[in-house]
């Protein structure tokens, strides 16, 4: 190996070029055409909607966040060629397909209720109090069909109405709060806000603080570990290395 070079690093960088610097047309074999808000663009075949739009020349300041399906910033509505269905997805998680027509919905106008969960009773009435529109649910299931996470959205709205916090939390847990359910709901329910309230109530009252955690916090407050910590933080690196190397590992 030369002093200032690392052939391995160069090979790794070269192999990852497309993901780190933008795509060069000469590296692409297969192409498709997509229609971004009605305008046609020829883009490489193996891209997501997000990266296809970037290839086309968009530099995002809206409608993009984590790029990996967690943040809900890149909600997108699209139709495929020859299909009557209006579909939804996250731009970063949906493959661009030939003939797709699409538009992003980077923002959902929605009201979040103001509440203090420490002062609310753990019962169904909380949903009627803060989100009375949940009772307008007509069980059409459009929210479920719109969910890019494939959650059973209507089921958790029904769980909210019943006051079943446990089931609401379980069914809604993977929600990324993109807002597509609320945008499609004919009853104008803001499902993801309803779920957020329900989950916090379940976390606080249904699960609570376990005894072992309460006990440990008390021990720390009382200074149980102070002496031990004083000692260990004043150890030399050599001593620490020894303690580290000899420490026991809890079996799996």
């Amino acid at each position, binding site marked *: 190996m030369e002093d200032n070079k690392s052939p391995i690093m160069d090979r790794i960088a070269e192999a990852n070029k497309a993901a780190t610097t933008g795509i060069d047309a000469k590296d692409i074999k297969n192409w498709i055409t997509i229609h971004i808000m009605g305008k046609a663009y020829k883009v490489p075949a193996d891209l997501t909607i997000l990266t296809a739009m970037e290839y086309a020349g968009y530099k995002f300041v809206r409608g993009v966040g984590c790029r990996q399906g967690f943040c809900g910033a890149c909600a997108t509505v699209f139709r495929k060629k020859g299909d009557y269905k209006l579909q939804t997805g996250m731009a970063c998680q949906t493959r661009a397909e030939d003939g797709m027509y699409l538009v992003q919905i980077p923002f959902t106008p929605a009201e979040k209720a103001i509440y203090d969960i420490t002062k609310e009773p753990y019962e169904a009435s909380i949903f009627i109090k803060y989100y009375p529109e949940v009772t307008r649910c007509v069980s059409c299931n459009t929210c479920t069909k719109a969910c890019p996470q494939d959650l059973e959205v209507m089921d958790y709205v029904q769980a909210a109405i019943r006051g079943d916090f446990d089931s609401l939390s379980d069914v809604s847990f993977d929600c990324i709060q993109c807002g597509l359910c609320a945008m499609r709901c004919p009853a104008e329910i803001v499902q993801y806000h309803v779920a957020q309230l329900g989950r916090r109530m379940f976390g*606080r009252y249904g699960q609570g*603080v376990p005894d072992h955690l309460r006990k440990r916090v008390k021990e720390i407050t009382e200074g149980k570990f102070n002496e031990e910590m004083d000692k260990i933080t004043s150890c030399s690196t050599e001593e620490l290395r020894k303690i580290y190397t000899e420490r026991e590992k809890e079996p799996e």
Partner: protein
Amino acid sequence: MAELKYIEGYPENIRKEIDKVAKTRDKRIDYTPPAMTMKERDEVLRIHPDYAPGGKREIQVGPNKGNLAPNEVADLLEAYPLIDQDEVNLSQVDYDTDILIIGGGLAGTSAALWANDSGIATERILLTNKLRHGDANSIMAEGGTQAADREVDSITKHYIDTIGGGHFENKPDVARALVEDAPLIMKWLCELGAIFDREENGDLAEKLAGGISVKRMHSCRDYTGLEEFRVLRDEFRTREIPYLEHYPAIELLTDGERVTGAVLWNLETGEYKIVKAKATIIATGGYGRLHIRGFPTTNHYGATFDGVVLSYRVGAKLRDIDAVQYHPTGAAYPIQIVGYLLTEKLRGSGAQPVNADGEAFVYPLEPRDVEASAIIRECYVRNKGIITPTGLRGVWLDTPLIEIKNGKGYIEKAFPGMIRMYKRYDIDIRKDPVLVFPTLHYQNGGIETDPSGRTNVDGLWVAGEVSGGVHGKNRLMGNSTLDCLVFGRRAGMSTAEYVKSHGDESKISLEHVKKYVKNLEQAGVKRTRRAPIILPDYRGKAALARMIDVF
């Protein structure tokens, strides 16, 4: 070239390779390669991107002049500002606040909540975000949060694991704060209503992870950061604390010595806003989008190092800025998800790295730098990796082992995010392994602080990934969300104390920027680079080549 034929998500030739993994699986159920000795670790670390030659240089200007930094980092520290002092009118203040928080991930959001809890009125706090509130690496944390809250565990054990993982270079006082506050943070989250994985008796379910000696990893399926964050954001909005979105900070303001606010910039309209503040907390996260050494990244779109760039110009000292964390297991296939995170919790739950011959070649829970190096060695030195259709190399992460060890249905329950990500490309991680290769994950170092998050510059606090010291040269899994929550809290409380004893008579100016520019000129830095870069650029080369600006 003929079209590739795909069988359940994999091209035919790779499908054949999978058979080799399946064949040795039975033998590997009860076999785990031994953990490396310290000597073996040192040996393999030589091909880690952080130690392989050619990646770093000395910083030419500022408080850390002469220290080594990755080239991409040095480039941004040695860059000219976006705005000229004379272009900005500082006489019109748009927001006058007590505490300005820049960056709204877990760290910034908890800082706001704890400042409020410490007696600062909501309207005296302002949180500004480059993108939306919560577009941050925090929400992408899959694996968990460490806290020593089981009877068999102790704060001391958590401390030892943390500094061993950090190569004994951690700053002891902040590392101590991290582990001592951890159980308290867990209790706070439970009380706010965060839903953690539980045992049947209601105890918190806890797992092992790389470099950790006792089970203390708390998780929320594989959406840990998301769950923690959305609970905090809900509480934040419920208290109606003021916040701005799509308003990155492009420069800090000072009165000559103290930080006294910032210049914000409307990402959509280009208009700037002046914020005057008694105390400023930087919680802008890390630098994955700098693609150090050409690696793909697990980081969100806005992870561009802005907070360090601005703080460095006001004189904030950095530490351990040379240490970059590469997560051992980023996706290497399919091309659409290259670099995305495959949580360490997968290995914590029994998934093994396996080479092209179907051999388990490394202890699955080495510290991240060691594990990453072992995978690079397998692919590029021993040539026992798998080559993908786009020319990337990777090794297998044998996910089906998880259900053999934990029972059927476990993956669906514990890793819904992973199942979903691969299902979109017709791959079932319960049946087939996945291809992995290290990916740029975390900024280990950053701005130095005391245990309250205070920097060496008066009026300036930092919290979260932007800070340095707590993780030494290498962060352990489960210590990043914890870092954000612990030091967000401490910075919130500390700034609350500070502003009570400081009036708002101080001046705002950009004099420090002028000085910094002078330093750059004296050092002979050419005017080719400007920073902060705010967002990366992935536009297609063909489109860029024909772009003209006519407005």
